[in-house]
């Protein structure tokens, strides 16, 4: 191979690294995606100039068809359907890996009758296996999210046993294939096995866990690409594939942690029902999204307006000093910080005022409910510190609720709400709060003082 081409691949690899790194931080994510796309372009160009003239047209036609389909899907799809689109794209990637490996194998063994070495053959088998699982797995995930098949976990007895048997068979077939390279049937059988396995593995996982599954399958497709790289002896495939494989695994880990599930738990299937966070939520059956301190810090770092809503929990935790500190740091970062004081927050009139005055929060940052309630809609982030009843939308929407008719803060109107409390336990009024399950609401569990102290630490580093 030409040294220039190899260098181009090297550059592409570096761009992928940079791209992934930048994708992990809100401020740089878009640029990161762009850099990685540039890397891809370089890799494609470097490849295209190698191809023989005779195939030019074929290849360009394929690329144009693929691009057109890709673009149409990408721009037509409704924003809410993005996760299933990602699943589908990912499946295509897996299938492509399978295809490439099979094509290379066929070319060598059948068309050119070369006896390929074992390293290559193992790589082919891995490509096929991982690529196939990725493909059908992703398609099932797509269909589940899409609603075409039920999002519920489809569980039957002996499921894990069947999967295990299938896997053993696949390994057996691979061994046969290695021993008998000239017979292409083994690889074809392996392909079919892989496709079946993909379906069976994802079917028992519930719809709520699909994002984690997709992330895992994404990691798989990286591994498939990596295996394909070994098939072709191509470093850029190895680097890119390995990057995606590894970072995908970590991401999967992070995501399942954010859902308070262990990865193993998810993969064993049968979970992923909406009862996911049952133990956390106590008796509640509201499904919440949890957020870690680090991630929360990143969110704080991107907003330009912040309203802090203190409640009785701030008083219990004696978190007023750290809350002030948090506010000050955000202000230093140019954020417009205000405090919304609900008239009955806490356990005595003026409870929040006493504490915030003690912590030296200037009076002019404190807004009474009526003065600020219309501003939530224009606010990037609301941080609810140990408040519960006073931000419960049931007071407005649920005439059966004991707090119906009490004026409450419209925090749910903000772009994002982060709620800091220790658990899903109720507040003074003893009722559930649907805010916590809202789409734009993230729960930051823990004692307010401890958690916010950490948050402040993280924010200082950003």
């Amino acid at each position, binding site marked *: 191979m030409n040294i220039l081409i190899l260098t181009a691949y090297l550059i592409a690899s570096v761009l992928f690294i940079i791209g992934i790194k930048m994708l992990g931080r809100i401020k740089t994510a878009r640029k990161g995606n762009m850099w990685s796309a540039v890397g*891809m372009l370089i890799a494609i160009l470097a490849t295209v100039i190698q191809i023989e003239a005779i195939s030019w047209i074929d290849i360009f036609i394929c690329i144009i068809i693929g691009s057109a389909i*890709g673009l149409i*899907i990408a*721009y037509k799809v409704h924003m809410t359907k993005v996760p299933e689109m990602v699943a589908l*794209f990912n499946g295509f990637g897996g299938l492509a890996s399978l295809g490439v490996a099979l094509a290379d194998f*066929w070319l060598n063994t059948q068309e050119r009758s070369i006896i390929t070495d074992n390293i290559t053959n193992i790589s082919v088998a891995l490509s096929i296996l991982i690529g196939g699982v990725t493909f059908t797995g992703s398609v099932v995930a797509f269909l589940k999210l899409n609603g075409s098949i039920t999002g519920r976990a489809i569980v039957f007895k002996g499921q894990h046993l069947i999967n295990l048997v299938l896997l053993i068979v696949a390994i057996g077939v691979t061994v046969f294939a290695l021993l008998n390279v000239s017979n292409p049937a083994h690889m074809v059988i392996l392909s079919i096995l892989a496709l079946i396995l993909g379906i069976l593995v994802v079917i028992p996982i519930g719809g709520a866990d699909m994002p984690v599954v997709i992330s895992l399958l994404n990691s798989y497709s990286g591994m498939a690409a990596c295996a394909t790289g070994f098939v072709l002896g191509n470093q850029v495939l190895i680097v*890119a594939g390995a990057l995606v494989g*590894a970072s995908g695994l970590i991401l999967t880990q992070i995501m399942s942690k954010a859902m308070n599930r262990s990865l193993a738990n998810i993969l064993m299937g049968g979970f992923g029902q909406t009862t996911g966070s049952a133990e956390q939520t106590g008796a509640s059956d509201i499904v919440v999204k949890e957020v870690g301190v680090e991630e929360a810090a990143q969110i704080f770092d*991107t907003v330009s307006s912040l309203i802090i809503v203190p409640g009785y929990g701030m008083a219990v935790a004696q978190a007023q000093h750290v809350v002030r500190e948090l506010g000050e740091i955000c202000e230093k970062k140019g954020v417009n910080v205000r405090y919304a004081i609900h008239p009955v927050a806490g356990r005595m009139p003026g409870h929040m005022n006493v504490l915030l005055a003690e912590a030296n929060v200037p009076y002019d940052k404190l807004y009474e409910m009526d003065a600020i309630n219309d501003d939530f809609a224009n606010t990037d982030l609301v941080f609810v510190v140990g408040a519960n009843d006073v931000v419960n939308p049931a007071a407005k929407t649920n005439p059966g609720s004991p707090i119906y008719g009490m004026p409450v803060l419209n925090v749910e109107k903000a772009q994002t709400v982060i709620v800091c409390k220790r658990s899903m336990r109720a507040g003074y009024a003893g009722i559930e709060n649907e805010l916590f399950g809202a789409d734009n609401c993230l729960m930051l569990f823990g004692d307010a003082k401890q958690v916010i102290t950490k948050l402040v630490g993280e924010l200082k580093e950003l």
Partner: protein
Amino acid sequence: MTGESFIILMYVLVLASYLGFELINKVPPTLHTPLMSGSNAISGITIVGAIISGNVAGYASLSKWLGMIALILATINVVGGYAVTDRMLKMFKKKK
């Protein structure tokens, strides 16, 4: 493939994997989907393999057709992947 060149490729694999682990540590939940989508686009690098596989003369060979199908699929993955990621990320622009 010789054992030696295999090992060197293994170096690349190992280093890249380790790097993959190190690169991602703290990701805010808002970025989970975009990051997944963006790295999915990168995994479309198989497109390089697909181009090479499609680079066979004559339409009779199965490998060529397999390669061409793989190429279309990989292209969808790459182009669609980058485009949809970008669409998502566009919505995060820090408002000032």
